[in-house]
């Protein structure tokens, strides 16, 4: 059974869906692997590495897409990629199915099976395939590195002969996987870290990292069974704004990681809040790709709002491309092997399996995923 | 012969006394002292014997006086100790938590 790994075409995407180490693992399991030349370059893997791992490296993208039973990619395919897929093929990548109705339907039309990595459930059992977490985790680390890079101050406290430097104050909004990692990293650097999240359950998790949880009473908020946050009512949003103002204005760094699964990210930090910060402060908007938590943040740009740097870096995991590729590739590997029967050399995506049910979007020419179907029919 | 038994008893009691008191938090120093002091009022037993015994008037008077003083020591001692401890109570309760 052949696995194909096309080179990423998405602008600024430096990750790859397959690292050489995993290529050889899959080959030992009885797969054959075809990699488009240059697929790994930007994450630090040369074509030679793939070749050494036993994969076939080819210039011909068509062959990779068309010839393979399984196609692995980081980003969703573009129209003509889809056209190349052979019917019955399995396409695995981040698909953003909520917002890509036409694309998804075209895949269905092509007769290909599509697995959307965003849709992998958050069950304890599925964590090893949970690419959202693995990437968010790295992104969280990156936010802090970016912040300290742009900050004209140091993070830790220092009592020196030339005077005492107070610790930088970091405020993390949204303490999910990414947020928690950001908190941990900032703590490591010696910053004074505060955090807020609408899901009260995370307060304890924040404290478990030695940071302070900012108490803002929003009334009932709660989370989905997947552990995702629910959207807030307008009143609640207002409450949150008010509650955060004071903290933000004192902070040297504000990092927002607030996401709403499948929906545009909530706008949490308004312009006036940014302006209330000291000049030289930094705001990192991790949700910029899904609309942004910060008013005025621009994708892949550092906007200066009177003296405050608002960093809208997209694709944060890409900043640590090597680790990100390793992790993502492992997720795919775990996913495939979970359902791979090495003896029979067959991949059985049992429709009864809860993971399959959750993450398989199209199959046998139709959109099969319940959630997605509802949304599409819904609107 | 009795004397030697008493010697043995003495020896053992002294060792026991040494072993009994090991580490005492500062707050307990005074109460413990006062508690021990009350015990040392045991001499009242001696006082009673001599006061009660009939080795002549003098010894009886001496004994009686002894009873008086010893009694002060005993009664007062235990009471004072109790009051002190009552005072420390609150503090003591969280002490263990504190030291463990």
């Amino acid at each position, binding site marked *: 059974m052949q696995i194909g790994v096309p080179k990423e075409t998405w602008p600024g995407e430096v990750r790859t869906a397959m690292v050489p180490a995993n290529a050889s693992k899959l080959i030992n399991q009885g797969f054959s692997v075809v990699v488009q030349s240059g697929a790994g370059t930007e994450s630090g893997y040369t074509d030679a590495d793939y070749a050494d791992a036993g994969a076939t490296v080819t210039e011909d993208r068509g062959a990779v897409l068309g010839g393979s039973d399984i196609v692995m990619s980081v980003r969703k395919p573009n129209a003509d990629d889809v056209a190349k897929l052979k019917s019955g093929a399995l396409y695995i990548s981040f698909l953003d199915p909520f917002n890509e109705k036409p694309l998804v339907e075209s895949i269905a039309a092509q007769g290909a099976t599509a697995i959307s990595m965003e849709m992998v459930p958050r069950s304890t059992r599925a964590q090893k395939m949970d690419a959202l977490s693995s990437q968010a985790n790295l992104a969280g680390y990156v936010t802090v590195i970016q912040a300290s890079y742009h900050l004209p101050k140091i993070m830790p406290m220092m009592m020196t002969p030339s005077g005492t430097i107070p610790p930088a104050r970091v405020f993390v909004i949204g303490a999910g996987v990414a947020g928690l990692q950001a908190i941990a990293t900032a703590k490591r650097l010696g910053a004074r870290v505060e955090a807020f999240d609408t899901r009260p359950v995370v307060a304890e998790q924040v404290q478990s990292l030695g940071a302070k949880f900012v108490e803002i009473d929003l009334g009932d908020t709660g989370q989905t069974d997947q552990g995702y946050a629910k959207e807030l009512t307008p009143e609640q949003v207002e409450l949150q704004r008010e509650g955060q103002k004071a903290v933000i204005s004192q902070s040297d760094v504000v990092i927002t990681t607030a996401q709403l699964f499948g929906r545009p990210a909530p706008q949490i930090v308004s312009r006036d809040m940014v302006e209330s910060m000291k000049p030289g402060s930094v705001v990192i908007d991790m949700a910029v790709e899904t609309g942004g938590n910060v008013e005025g943040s621009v994708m892949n740009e550092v906007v200066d709002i009177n003296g405050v740097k608002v960093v809208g870096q997209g694709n944060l995991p890409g900043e640590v491309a090597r680790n990100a590729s390793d992790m993502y590739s492992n997720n795919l590997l775990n996913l495939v092997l979970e359902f791979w029967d090495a003896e029979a050399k067959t991949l059985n995506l049992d429709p009864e399996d809860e993971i399959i049910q959750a993450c398989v979007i199209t199959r046998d020419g139709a959109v099969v995923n319940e959630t997605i179907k509802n949304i599409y029919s819904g609107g | 012969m009795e004397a030697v038994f008493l010697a043995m008893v003495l020896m053992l*009691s002294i060792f026991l006394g040494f072993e009994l008191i090991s580490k005492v938090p500062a707050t307990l120093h005074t109460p413990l002292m006062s508690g021990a002091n009350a015990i040392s009022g045991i001499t009242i037993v001696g006082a009673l014997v001599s006061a009660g015994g009939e080795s002549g008037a003098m010894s009886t008077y001496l004994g009686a006086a002894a009873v008086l003083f010893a009694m002060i020591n005993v009664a007062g001692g235990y009471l004072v100790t109790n009051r002190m401890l009552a005072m420390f109570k609150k503090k003591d309760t969280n002490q263990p938590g504190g030291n463990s």
Partner: protein
Amino acid sequence: MSPVAINLWYVLAAALFVFGLKQLGSPATAVRGNVLSSVAMIIAVAVTLLSKEILSYEMILLTAVVGAVIGVVVAQKVEMTSMPEMVALFNGSGGIASLMVGWAALYSTGNTTFTEVTILLSIVIGGMTFSGSILAWGKLSEVMTSAAVVFGAQRIVNAGILVGLVACSVLFCMNPAVDSPYLYAVIALSLLFGVMAVLPIGGADMPVVISLLNSYSGLAACAAGFAINNNILIVAGSMVGAAGIILTNIMCKAMNRSLGHVLFSGFGAVKQATKVEGEVKPIVAEDAYLILEAAQSVTFVPGYGMAVAQAQHVVRELGELLEKNGAEVTYAIHPVAGRMPGHMNVLLAEANVPYDQLVEMEDINPRIDNVDVAVVIGANDVVNPAARNDENSPIYGMPIINVDQARTVFVLKRSMGSGFSGVDNPLFFGDNTRMLFGDAKESIAAVVAEFKG
């Protein structure tokens, strides 16, 4: 009741005393302990009264009741602040009682020399316990000056008294008679000795003295026990005597004085005055614990040595224990402590010491004289008073943390070696300085162990 029965009851009473005393030693059980030992006392008294040795009850009952009433009333009246005096008084009355018991025992016929000796012991110890306690009471309740009264010839005088005491005792034992003049001499001398022994001790040390006298009164009771061949007196007396010594020792250490010094206070007082200058006073973890345990405010002053020993984690732990124990804990960071700017911050942050416990040199110095214990952990130059006082010291003029002005200073280092700047440090010879030698991590860990164990 038969002697056998009585003595069996005594055994029970003794057992209760053991329990009581043990439990008195730990906060959780102290109250119960006190009750137990009082029960034991009641038993002892009761069975004695029932013993057929006793003939005339009236007198006894009368005195007993009067005594009890006095004791109770006083104990109720006295307010908490003057507890120690009270204890002293009670102790004194215990002493005088033993004296009288001994004295009375003289009247019983057919005493062996051994008995005579024990009788004398109970008289002597009882006597000095009495006078000593009264004096201690006087000092504590400011009835008289609480200062240490020291005069030149003291040693000679004391020695004289002792000799006299021994002499008279011997002479008395040669031909014991209740009206022998030597008897009165002994009594007088022992009373005098008690006074002399306590005179030269300052009010601050009184608690220790009382605890010691208390141990003596135990021994007096024990001696009395021998005098009248009484089991329970011996057991309870000697046990209290022993326990008292231990307690005294503990208290001394907690006050950072040596027991020997208190035991021979009179002579000690003089000695001590002479030898302080330029002398290094080492201290062991256990004593350090006792002092810290009683401290209300503790300041850690870390230096390069803490980094070398990687002691930051245990230090934080000790800090937490001290806080739990009710002390106010701060970490005074000198700007140049360590080998790089912010060296201490790196380590303490790693050990999760909360930022708000870190205080700068400028902030701690003004209030350092209110700090009970300053614990200098592998710091040297940054706490070197020479920088303040010694014009020609190479580090003169560098601001330092004035730990030498704290009530007590512990310096944790491995040797008397100097620091980065190679300058000797007068702090180590300070009067209020105690050197806790050894690797900082080991030392602190040891203290922590004392706290927990």
